[in-house]
């Protein structure tokens, strides 16, 4: 015990009206350590990080950096203490170059400009050479002259890390950094993290994915309900243990699932093409079939046309070319409502914007798609009692945790919001369920619930189309896996033959029966 810890938090307590977000939290980050902070949404990870980064003030407790007690009142002070943070959503300006983004807020001026006072000339050359220097030091590949908007997501993340290093961060906080990456990109990030740690940078790595913790962390701290429930190392812990620590009870990490017994095709796509908002082809000649009693998983990194595909199937976006058949009927200029009435349920990708009216009560959200049908309305007049009764039943059946049926949906936790949507869609007479990124941002407990529910639906003879960027989810649930890359389905594999590596490569556009050399991933470095 020679060196003091890089950062230590003692007894951090932070209360928000009605919530104790951090309850006497202790955290010790050793010099050059990768410390995983594990916990479900709402466990208090982000609050703790925001306190360390100066965005909030703790009510109680102390923070030490290198053994010295510090008071951090703003991000600027945090940066001055050598703390850098990479947010889950990047804080980059797309139309500026990497160098411009990196120097934003700490712009250096050329020597001559000192004579001119505050109207100085920006010293791009100094930034660029410093970036190149850091680049080679930490094996962070970043081209300082590239425009941020031309970079891949992985490269943008490297710019964010570079931003922190440029400000001489010795402590790096990474908030859910892998949420937007392909498996291969995540692996690259882990290598960068290891190399940074070797050179003495201490890293706090926030995540809720257990596999990643084992891949990269030196130490693990688990939080639940604002408290630290334990601290351990990857050697001592098992996935099962960590999962139960996070959730507070035993969880099934792998769902047992019987073999599928697919029957007739419920959804058939024939050479379907769809344009995005700018009129560019986002979905290219996709041909697919989803049969009753099976789950077809569409894997792919976000932004490869999945959103547009789902929107076209649900009537939210026009079909440019090709054919969609649901059951026996061919869709043509069909409204969302007509498709719904054909027996299609839809768990939309953006649950807060599309899936729910956040200001509406839970009970109103539960009839959002059926409010005009009996028994919820007779003619024009809404039957409030039937809506209440429906809410009572579904809240019970789907275990929606809400203070009351009249609570605005926007005040529920993410998992419970998703339960409201699932309950609503499954309570309608449907034969096809389209689930787009159904567990994004949800905690382990809710994910388990949703996965079980999807498999139950499959076993009950529904056709399920699952679109997800989470490879583990696709592998755990699907009976067949289609991989989407740049708007095309580049391969479809039976789940039992698919390996993680193979799908990961396909997601990056490598391999597949439809790939040509021209479609290799483009990355500007």
């Amino acid at each position, binding site marked *: 015990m020679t060196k003091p810890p890089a950062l230590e938090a003692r007894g951090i307590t932070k209360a928000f009206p009605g919530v104790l977000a951090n309850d006497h939290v202790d955290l010790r980050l050793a010099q050059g350590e990768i410390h995983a902070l594990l916990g479900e949404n709402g466990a208090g990870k982000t609050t703790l990080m925001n306190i360390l980064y100066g965005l909030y003030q703790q009510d109680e407790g102390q923070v030490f950096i290198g053994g010295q007690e510090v008071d951090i009142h703003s991000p600027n002070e945090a940066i001055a203490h050598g703390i850098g943070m990479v947010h889950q959503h990047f804080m980059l300006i797309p139309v500026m170059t990497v160098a411009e983004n990196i120097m934003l807020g700490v712009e250096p001026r050329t020597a001559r400009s000192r004579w001119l006072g505050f109207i100085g000339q920006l010293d791009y050359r100094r930034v660029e050479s410093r970036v190149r220097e850091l680049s080679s030091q930490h094996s962070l590949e970043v081209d300082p002259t590239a425009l941020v908007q031309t970079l891949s997501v992985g490269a943008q993340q490297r710019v964010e890390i570079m931003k922190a290093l440029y400000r001489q961060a010795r402590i790096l906080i990474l908030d859910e950094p892998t949420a937007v990456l392909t498996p291969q990109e995540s692996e690259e990030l882990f290598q960068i993290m290891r190399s940074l740690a070797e050179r003495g940078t201490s890293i706090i790595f926030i995540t809720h994915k257990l596999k990643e913790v084992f891949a990269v962390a030196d130490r693990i701290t688990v939080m639940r309900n604002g408290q630290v429930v334990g601290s351990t190392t990857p050697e001592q812990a098992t996935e099962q243990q960590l999962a139960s620590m996070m959730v507070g009870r035993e969880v099934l990490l792998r769902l047992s699932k019987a073999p599928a017994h697919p029957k007739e095709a419920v959804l058939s796509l024939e050479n379907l093409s769809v344009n995005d908002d700018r009129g560019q082809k986002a979905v290219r000649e996709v041909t697919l079939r989803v049969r009753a009693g099976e789950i077809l998983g569409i894997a792919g990194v976000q932004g490869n046309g999945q959103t547009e595909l789902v929107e076209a199937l649900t009537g939210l976006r026009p079909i440019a070319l090709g054919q969609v058949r649901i059951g026996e009927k061919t869709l043509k200029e069909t409204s969302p409502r007509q498709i719904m009435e054909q027996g299609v349920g839809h768990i939309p990708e953006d649950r807060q914007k599309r899936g729910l009216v*956040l200001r509406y009560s839970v009970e109103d959200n539960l009839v959002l798609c059926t409010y005009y049908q009996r028994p919820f309305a007779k003619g024009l007049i809404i039957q409030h009692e039937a809506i209440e009764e429906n809410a009572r039943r579904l809240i019970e059946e789907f275990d929606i*945790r809400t*203070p009351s049926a009249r609570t605005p949906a926007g005040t529920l936790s993410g998992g419970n919001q998703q339960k409201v949507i699932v309950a609503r869609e499954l309570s309608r007479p449907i034969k096809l369920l389209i689930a787009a990124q159904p567990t994004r941002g949800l905690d382990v407990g809710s994910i388990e619930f949703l996965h079980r529910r999807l498999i139950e639906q499959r076993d009950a003879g529904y056709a399920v189309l699952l679109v997800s960027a989470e490879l583990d989810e696709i592998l755990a649930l699907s009976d067949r896996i289609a991989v989407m890359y740049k708007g095309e389905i580049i391969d479809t594999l039976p789940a039992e033959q698919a390996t993680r590596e193979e799908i990961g490569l396909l997601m990056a556009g490598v391999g597949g029966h439809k790939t040509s050399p021209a479609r290799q991933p483009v990355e500007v470095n």
Partner: protein
Amino acid sequence: MSNHNDFEKTSPWGLFLQQLIVPALAVVTALVLGAIIMWATGNDPLVAYRGLLDGAFLKKRALSETLVATTPYIFLGLAVAFGFKCGLFNIGAEGQFYIGQLAAVWVGYNVHGLPAILHLTLALGAAIVAGAIWSGIPGYLRAKLGSHEVINTIMMNYIAIYLADYLVGLSGPMRDPASSAPQTPAVDASAQLPRLSELPALMASPVTRFTAALLVAVFAFIVVRWWWQQRGNSLRGWRNPWVVGLISAGGLGLITYVFLSSLNRIGGPFTDRADRLHLGFFLAILVAVLVWWILEKTTLGFEVRTVGASPEAAEYAGISIVRNFVLAMAISGGLAGLAGGVEVLGLERNVKSFFSAGYGFDSIAVALLANNNPLGIIPAGFLFGALRNGADLMELRAGVSKQIILVVQALVLMFIAAPVIIRKLYRIRAIREEGVQLTRGWG
């Protein structure tokens, strides 16, 4: 899970009171600030507010005149609020109000020989349709082409105002050739919406009285039966909604008949020939309740509100945004047109050139003050009516410019628009509510 249990703890009544706190304090604070301004400019605020009070309520016929001014505020406030509920900003209430007046007066003096009830309905109907068309055009342009309704309703205001000036003006086709002033002919007696002072003469015959009482009874039956069913009271025995409805209908019909028979003995506004309070005020309250009912209790209202609260979610749920944009704008304009019709048929009885009164623009403030709640628009409209009506006497008594009332109105609005000021000032906690986003950017 969630710790926001406030919804459980607060009763609906408590929630209702909570919603009233900010507007009420906004009004009080604005009046206090208005007093400070008057005092700072060398006037006596106490004399001024005493004048305002007398002019608005206490003087002879003051309350009637306040209610006369309240009437268009309620209709127009409802019009603006209905648009807001769908996420649309109808700035064109003023223009639709004009168009409604023109349509009503045209039917009023051109159509002859109809029974009063039919002629009146036809004239009011014409006002509604004209207003609905006037606002439906911007609504359609917004829905189909995405051109912003704020711009188009403003433009439609200009068209309406100058069209009215032309039609009624010196060489206009609607000008009354028999009059030297630029104004239309007066509407036929059969198209007049009665003033209270005209009621005793109209209700002289027992047959008319009976018909009126019958109408009230039928209406009461429908409303009470529905309400009783909604409340979910025990449906057996005498608590059966049919029975309750019939009892209430009979009772109210009887009361109406007796009331109409004794108008002369009641006196007050019923016998004062100079009192201008007309049935439009009572119609406005009925319409406010009707609008509330449509918004809260019908699928049509659910769709309108959903589009207003989240167009993306509405689209997902299969609710047509195009249809609801057009519909909400048309209903909004219809209400504004009705305001014009009521104003002409109940109060003015003809349309004069340059008749602008600015009601349409003030009503945006009325809707905001009421937080777009149709029932809240009644007190909000009343406040604006009182301020408008009391301002003259305030000016006369205290020598302050009556424009100070506009300052007070503006302050009220400012506090409503920035409730944080009021909350900080009086240390009230924010409550979550189903508010409405006012605008969503341009196009």
